[in-house]
C-alpha cells in the first residue's frame, strides 16, 4: 500500500505535568479536562486534522491509561485511517534492553522507525500541554518557502515574562541566530511555543548524533536546537499571533477556562471553520431547573442545574443541586454539588461529590489561591475546604476539618 506522507506529526504526551498536582495524580497532563467537554490533547489533535496532517504518533509514558483510552482508534478526530492516523507510541523493550524516554529528543529518537514507515519529507514536533488553534500547514509552507532545516513557532510574550520561556533572537528575515532557554536577561520577546518543523534528514542526523552523546540530556530545547544553531543550519522563526496558552499550572489552567467566557471570548470554540473535536459520551441535553440561575458560564450536555452558576465552566454530567452555588470555578465531568453547598474559586476534577452545605474555596477577592480537589473524592456534608487547598485524597480532608 502507498504509505508516503509529506508530513508526520509527533506529539509529546508523556509529561507528568507535576505543577498541576492533584489533577495529574492519575492522568497524564494531555488528558486533563479543559473547557467542559475537551481534554488538552484535543487541541493539537484537532489542529493536526484541520491542517491536513493525518499521521500522528503520540508518545506516552506517564500514567497513560486514561490517555490511551481517550485516544482509542482516533475516531473522534477522523484519525482512524487505513494508512496513518493516530498511533500510540509507548517506550518499548529493544534488543539491547528497555529504556524509558529520557528526554523529548530521546523519545523521538526511539521512534525513528515509526517516522520512517511513512517516508515523510518533514516532521512536526508538538506537545500536549497548550491550548491554541493553529494551522500547521501555514507553518509548513513557510518552512518550505525558506528551504529551512528547522522552523520554530514563536509567540510574542511580555518582556517581563520572557525569562520563563525559550527565547529566540532573529534577524530581519526571521532567521534565528541565538536561542536562550529561560534567560535571566532576555534580549527578545519571541518565545518558543514548543512546536518544531524539521526536514526529516536533518532531524535524523541530529537525533542520532545526540543519542551517541552520553553527556546530552536528550532535550530539544537544551541540546538539539543549540547544536543545530552552532552548526549554522538554516533555522527560522514562524510567528503566531493568535490565542495560545500554556496550561501547565493550576492558575493558567483556570485562566484558560475563563477565557472561554464573556461576550467576545479570548478563545472561541464555537468556530465552524476550526472545530475542536473531542470524544463524546452520549449525554442527554442539559436541564436548567425552575429556580436555577446561570450567568456568564459555559455548560455542557448532561448537566442538571437547579442552583446558581456564575462565571464558571462545567463539564458534562455535572449536577448542581438546589441552593448550591458555583462561582468562578472549573467543574469537570460528573461532579455533584450538594444542596446549599458553595464552591468558589476552585477546580474540581471529575467525579467529585461535594456534600450538602459544604464550602469549597473562598470568594476570588479574598482567596489565597485556587482550591483544587482531585478526581473521585467525596467531600462529606458540611465540610470546609480551605481556599488554595490541594486535595489529593480524602485523608487531606480530615486534616482540613
Amino acid at each position: 500500500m502507498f504509505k508516503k506522507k509529506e508530513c508526520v506529526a509527533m506529539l509529546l504526551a508523556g509529561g507528568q505535568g507535576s505543577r498541576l498536582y492533584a489533577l495529574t495524580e492519575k492522568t497524564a497532563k494531555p488528558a486533563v479536562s479543559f473547557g467542559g467537554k475537551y481534554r488538552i490533547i484535543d487541541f493539537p489533535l484537532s489542529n493536526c486534522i484541520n491542517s491536513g496532517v493525518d499521521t500522528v504518533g503520540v508518545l506516552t509514558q506517564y500514567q497513560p491509561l486514561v490517555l490511551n483510552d481517550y485516544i482509542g482508534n482516533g475516531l473522534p478526530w477522523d484519525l482512524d485511517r487505513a494508512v496513518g492516523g493516530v498511533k500510540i507510541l509507548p517506550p518499548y523493550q529493544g534488543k539491547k534492553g528497555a529504556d524509558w524516554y529520557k528526554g523529548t529528543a530521546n523519545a523521538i529518537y526511539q521512534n525513528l522507525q515509526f517516522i520512517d514507515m511513512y517516508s515523510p519529507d518533514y516532521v512536526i514536533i508538538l506537545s500536549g500541554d497548550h491550548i491554541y488553534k493553529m494551522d500547521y500547514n501555514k507553518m509548513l509552507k513557510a518552512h518550505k518557502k525558506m528551504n529551512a532545516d528547522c522552523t520554530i513557532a514563536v509567540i510574542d510574550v511580555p518582556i517581563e515574562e520572557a525569562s520563563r520561556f525559550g527565547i529566540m533572537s532573529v534577524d530581519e528575515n526571521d532567521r534565528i541566530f541565538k536561542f536562550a532557554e529561560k534567560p535571566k536577561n532576555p534580549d527578545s520577546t519571541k518565545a518558543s511555543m514548543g512546536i518544531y518543523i524539521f526536514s526529516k534528514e536533518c532531524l535524523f542526523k541530529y537525533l542520532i548524533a545526540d543519542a551517541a552523546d552520553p553527556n546530552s540530556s536528550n532535550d530539544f530545547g537544551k541540546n538539539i536546537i543549540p547544536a543545530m544553531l552552532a552548526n549554522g543550519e538554516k533555522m527560522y522563526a514562524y510567528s503566531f499571533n493568535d490565542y495560545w496558552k500554556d496550561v501547565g499550572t493550576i492558575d493558567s489552567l483556570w485562566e484558560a477556562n475563563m477565557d472561554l467566557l464573556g461576550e467576545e471570548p479570548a478563545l472561541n470554540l464555537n468556530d465552524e471553520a476550526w472545530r475542536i473535536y473531542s470524544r463524546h459520551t452520549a449525554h442527554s441535553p442539559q436541564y436548567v431547573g425552575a429556580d436555577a440561575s446561570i450567568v456568564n458560564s459555559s455548560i455542557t450536555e448532561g448537566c442538571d442545574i437547579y442552583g446558581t452558576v456564575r462565571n464558571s465552566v462545567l463539564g458534562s454530567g455535572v449536577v448542581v443541586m438546589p441552593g448550591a452555588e458555583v462561582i468562578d470555578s472549573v467543574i469537570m465531568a460528573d461532579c455533584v454539588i450538594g444542596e446549599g453547598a458553595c464552591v468558589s474559586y476552585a477546580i474540581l476534577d471529575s467525579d467529585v461529590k461535594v456534600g450538602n452545605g459544604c464550602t469549597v474555596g473562598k470568594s476570588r477577592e479574598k482567596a489565597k489561591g485556587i482550591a483544587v480537589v482531585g478526581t473521585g473524592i467525596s467531600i462529606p456534608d458540611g465540610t470546609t475546604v480551605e481556599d488554595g487547598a490541594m486535595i489529593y485524597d480524602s485523608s487531606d480532608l480530615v486534616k482540613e476539618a
Partner: protein
Amino acid sequence: MSVAGLIFSNIHNSAIPELTSVRTMASVPYGCRYRLVDFPLSNMVNSGITKIGIITHNNYQSLMDHIGTGKDWDLARRSGGIRILPPFIAAYSNASAAKLYSTRLEALMGVTNFISKCTEEYIVLSDCDGICNIDLTKVIDDHIKKNADVTIVTRTVKSAKEVSPEGATEVKCDENGMATEVSAYLKHEGDAEISTNILVANRLFLLNAVNDASAHGYNHFYKDIIARRINRARINCYHYDGIYLQVTSLESYFDCSMKLLDPEVRHGLFTKDSPIYTKLRNSAPTVYSEDSKITNSYVADGCVIEGTVENSIIFRGVHVGKGTVIKNSILLQDTFIGHNASLNCVITDKNVVIRNNRILSGHESMPFFISKGAMV
C-alpha cells in the same frame, strides 16, 4: 441469541406534515439533539443488535445525512452494521411492481431480500413515531421463553386521545399473554392494550408470512399476517409500562417535547446505562451570557443564550439574542433569534431566523410553526 433489526422510517409521515414535508418521520428532530430514529436505533444497539436495516419510502435525504456510516451508533461494521433500504421499484415490470409501497406489509415485501439474506434467528421491527427507552433483550427473552412466532409489544392507553388519528391496533390476550384477538382500535371507552408496533418475529416465520401474503395479494400486516394466523401461530404479547410518548400530530409533537421538562419522563428516556445515541456535531458547550436568565428548560450544546428562556426546548446551535424572551417554545437546530424579540408557544424548524423586535405567539393547543429556513 442472534437478532437483526428493521426500522420503518416513513410510516406515519402524514401525522405531522409540517415537519415531514422536508424529511422522514425518522429524521424529525426531537429532544434538543436527537432525531426520532435515534430511539429505536439506540434501543436496538443497547440490546446487542448490530445488524439493522432502515426501510425508506421518500424524502430520505435528511435520514441518510443523519445516519451516515452509522459510526455514531457504533454501527459502522464489516459484518452487519446499518443499511438503508431504499424503495425497490422495478424499472421494466408491470405497474404494480413499479409502485411505492403504502402499507407496512408492502414495505416488508420490498425488503424480503434483506430478510432472507439475514442469518439471524429473530428480527425486531420498530416504527419511528414512538419515543421510548425499552430493553429489547427482555422482549426477546420473553419471545423465546414463550416459544412465540411473533411478539407484539403493547402499551395501555386510557382514552382515544392518546392514539394516532390514523388509528391503532388493539390486542387482546389470554392469561398466558398469548394474543386471542387483534383488531383495529375502535376508540371505545376505558383502557385498551394497543400495539406499539415494536415486534419481535422469528425471521423465517416472518419471511414465509410475507411471501405468502405477497402471493395472495394481501396488504395489511395486522389483518392479513397476524389476525389470519391468530389460532395457528403463537402470537405473544409483551406489556411495556415504561415511558412511551407517541407523536401523532404537531400538537402532540409539542406536547411530547414539553413532557421532557418533567423529570420522570426525562429520567425514563435518558439513562446512564442505556444512552440514546445520535449524530455528533462536535458543538462547543453552551455559553450563557452576563444577562441570560434561563429557567425550566432543556438545552443542547453549541448554543449562545443572551436573553430570557423559560419552559423551552433548545436544540444545538441556537442563538438567543439580548433582551429576547422565549417562553414555551421549541427552537430547532441553528435557529437564530435577534434582540428584543418575544416568542411564546412557537416551534421554529431548522435554520429559522427571527429578526430583532419580532413578537410571535401561538397557543399550547395550537403552536405556531415556522418552517425550515424561513426568516421572520
